[in-house]
């Protein structure tokens, strides 16, 4: 088996190509693969169509469907582990969906190693967040609708990762976009929430255009959209075509995963209820872009250019997100910046090609757990502080909320990459892999880890340590067990997921048949890189601790440097989008309106005015006197005669 550190330390070269596993018929425990999606979908349908009658028991039904799906996912995992490592791809075709000429797209599911880990992440984290929401949304009058939307999201996300062709994936892709829109705007009576939902939808749409173009290009090039069939012949297409497909898929991934330059929607998406932020905008949906890139590895492996662009986008976003997270005072927005940054890590890893795919997914899984933990912890704090989200109004919450404090601490250490917490294993693997490909990417990963140390310690210190800066009417208290139990489970997950996946689950060996793996020895022992990273992280943490341990001004200080000001404004993403996209669009629109008003309408109105005007003048001839008409007739007849005479004269 391929251990990550072991082979590298032994100086061995690993080069395993991905294999296209034979698609086994879904029998035995796999025969009910479709139920996995049908369960939450049925839940959503019942809750959303059932109306007020389901108000009383609806939320519990929502929790039940997802929990049942999670249990079935574990059964599927056991079934998949029972098969041989190169034969873990199970397919189930429900029916032919589209057949036009040579184009066919079935509704068919494919469960392989990659889908499996996603299914587990989605259903287990999803179930925990559903349970947590029972407490968090307890007093919301619309909570039946909320659980309906959450179920819809789970169903769409499962469809996305289980689809065996790009077209069906697109259905899931749009489904999660819709659910995200509905949930960001869940409190639609707040204008800011409605605007944020719209913004997320529109920016996602830009990425979706990339995905639909990519699917069209894939069909034109390969004649099919089924994953296995495309990947089997991916190498035969011309490199420029593959590069275009790769770039369009990257555009799609950037939209969904809030990567540069389509990152601006994620911070505003925090207008949604906190469980939504945890489930959709941290743990699962925003990682769909990473899934898309890793799933399409056969395409990216054949185009160095697209892969390099992926790498660069990942690095840019990693820093953008980290810097934003360091300056935001709103706890959720800071976490959103951190999400951007961590997904930047994953995209960076995916951009390393076969060297990094495995670690992108590994980090995605650990991140899904500890980021959900952080968001739910933040939700618990927000709940306790009467919906106050400003960290400058927190402080000294450790004593009041011990469980939240402990689980948040575990997640903080995990995201900072302190050994042996889960983030350490995945993040250091990404940094090692980055050094194999490019020293610049490796150093970037290390520096971003240092910034992670800074912003997470800042958040943690401002929230739980220091002096209380509460408003007078705030009496923080620990949340109810329905909220703290998911926190405890996720907190334990934040500690052990990394180790469990790596040593007990052998995540690398598990994923290699799908993604392939290349490893070459690094010039220095891996421990050196780990120590340097750790030193940077601790340095960042120390700076933040010293700075925010004592008094934090309740009002944000204004005499700050340019970088802080920019980061507080989310690196001016709205202003930049406004100047680069929105205003030019307005100008074009105005120009087109001008052309339409003056040009097109001018011609049409001109013709009409000419006809009307000449008609007005001509009608003066209609005097009503019969004798003048007769005279006109005589005149006309005479004229005709004269003309005839003149013409025939010669």
């Amino acid at each position, binding site marked *: 088996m391929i251990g990550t550190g072991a082979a590298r330390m032994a100086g061995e070269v690993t080069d395993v190509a991905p294999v296209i596993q034979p698609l086994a018929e879904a029998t035995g425990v796999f025969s009910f693969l479709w139920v996995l999606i049908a369960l939450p979908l049925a839940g959503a349908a019942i809750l959303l169509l059932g109306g007020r009658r389901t108000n009383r028991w609806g939320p519990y039904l929502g929790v039940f469907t997802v929990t049942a799906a999670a249990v079935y996912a574990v059964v599927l995992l056991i079934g998949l582990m029972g098969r041989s490592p190169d034969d873990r791809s199970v397919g189930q075709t429900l029916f032919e969906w589209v057949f036009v000429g040579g184009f066919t797209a079935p509704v068919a599911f494919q469960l392989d190693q990659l889908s499996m880990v996603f299914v587990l992440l989605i259903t287990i984290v999803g179930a925990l967040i559903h349970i947590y929401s029972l407490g968090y949304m307890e007093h919301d009058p619309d909570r039946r609708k909320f659980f309906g939307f959450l179920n819809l999201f789970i169903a769409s996300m499962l469809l996305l990762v289980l689809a065996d062709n790009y077209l069906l994936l697109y259905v899931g892709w749009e489904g999660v976009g819709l659910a995200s829109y509905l949930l960001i705007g869940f409190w639609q009576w707040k204008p800011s929430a409605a605007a944020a939902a719209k913004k997320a939808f529109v920016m996602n749409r830009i990425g979706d255009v990339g995905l639909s173009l990519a699917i069209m290009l894939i069909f034109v090039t390969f004649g099919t959209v089924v994953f296995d069939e495309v990947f089997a012949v991916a190498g035969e297409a011309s490199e420029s075509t593959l590069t275009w497909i790769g770039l369009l898929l990257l555009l799609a991934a950037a939209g969904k995963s809030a990567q540069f330059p389509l990152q601006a929607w994620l911070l505003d998406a925090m207008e949604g209820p906190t469980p939504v932020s945890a489930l959709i905008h941290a743990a699962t949906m925003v990682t769909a872009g990473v899934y898309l890139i890793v799933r399409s590895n056969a395409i990216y492996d054949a185009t160095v250019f697209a892969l390099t662009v992926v790498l660069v986008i990942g690095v840019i976003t990693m820093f953008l997100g980290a810097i934003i997270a360091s300056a935001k005072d709103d706890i959720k927005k800071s976490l959103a910046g951190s999400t951007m940054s961590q997904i930047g890590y994953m995209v960076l890893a995916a951009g390393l090609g076969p060297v990094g795919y495995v670690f992108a997914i590994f980090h995605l899984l650990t991140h899904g757990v500890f980021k959900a933990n952080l968001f739910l912890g933040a939700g618990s704090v927000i709940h306790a502080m009467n919906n106050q989200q400003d960290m400058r109004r927190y402080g000294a919450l450790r004593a009041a909320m011990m469980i939240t404090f402990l689980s948040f601490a575990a997640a903080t250490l995990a995201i900072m990459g302190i050994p042996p917490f889960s983030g350490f294993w995945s993040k250091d693997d990404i940094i090692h892999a980055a050094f194999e490909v490019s020293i610049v990417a490796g150093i970037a990963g290390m520096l971003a880890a240092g910034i992670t140390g800074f912003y997470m310690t800042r958040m943690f210190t401002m929230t739980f340590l220091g002096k209380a800066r509460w408003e007078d009417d705030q009496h923080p208290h620990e949340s109810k067990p329905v909220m703290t139990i998911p926190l405890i489970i996720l907190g334990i997950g934040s500690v052990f997921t990394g180790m469990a996946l790596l040593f007990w689950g052998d995540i690398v060996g598990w994923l290699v048949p799908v993604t392939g793996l290349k490893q070459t020895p690094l010039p220095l022992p891996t421990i050196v890189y780990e120590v340097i990273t750790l030193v940077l992280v601790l340095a960042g943490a120390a700076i933040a601790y010293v700075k925010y341990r004592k008094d934090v001004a309740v009002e944000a200080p204004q005499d700050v440097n340019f970088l802080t000001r920019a980061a507080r404004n989310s690196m001016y993403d709205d202003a930049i989008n406004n100047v680069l996209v929105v205003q030019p669009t307005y100008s074009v629109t105005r120009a087109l309106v001008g052309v339409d008003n003056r040009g097109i309408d001018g011609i049409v109105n001109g013709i009409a005015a000419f006809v009307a005007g000449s008609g007005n003048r001509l*009608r*003066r001839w*209609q*005097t*009503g*006197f*019969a*004798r003048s008409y*007769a*005279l006109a007739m*005589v005149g006309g007849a005479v004229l005709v005669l004269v003309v005839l005479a003149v013409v025939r004269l010669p």
Partner: protein
Amino acid sequence: MNPENYVILAAVLFTIGTVGVLVRRNAIVVFMSIELMLNAANLAFVAFARMQGNLDGQVIAFFVMVVAAAEVVVGLAIIVAIYRSRRSASIDEPNLLKY
């Protein structure tokens, strides 16, 4: 007799009819002038038929008579109706149908 004379007579009658239509105000007289023009045309048809040795013109003359008779029926009815409502047979007075 030279058939050309008939043609000349037809032209003279037609001209008289035309002038009558243009200058007279009484609807009945205008109507009679129109009849004169029609019959001038008939005369020309018959004369030309004779000159050509061809019966077509004579056949057309009969057609014209039938049409003229029908036209007289409709036209006189209109004139009588207008006279009843306006107490006048002037052709210039009913000039409402205009711009």
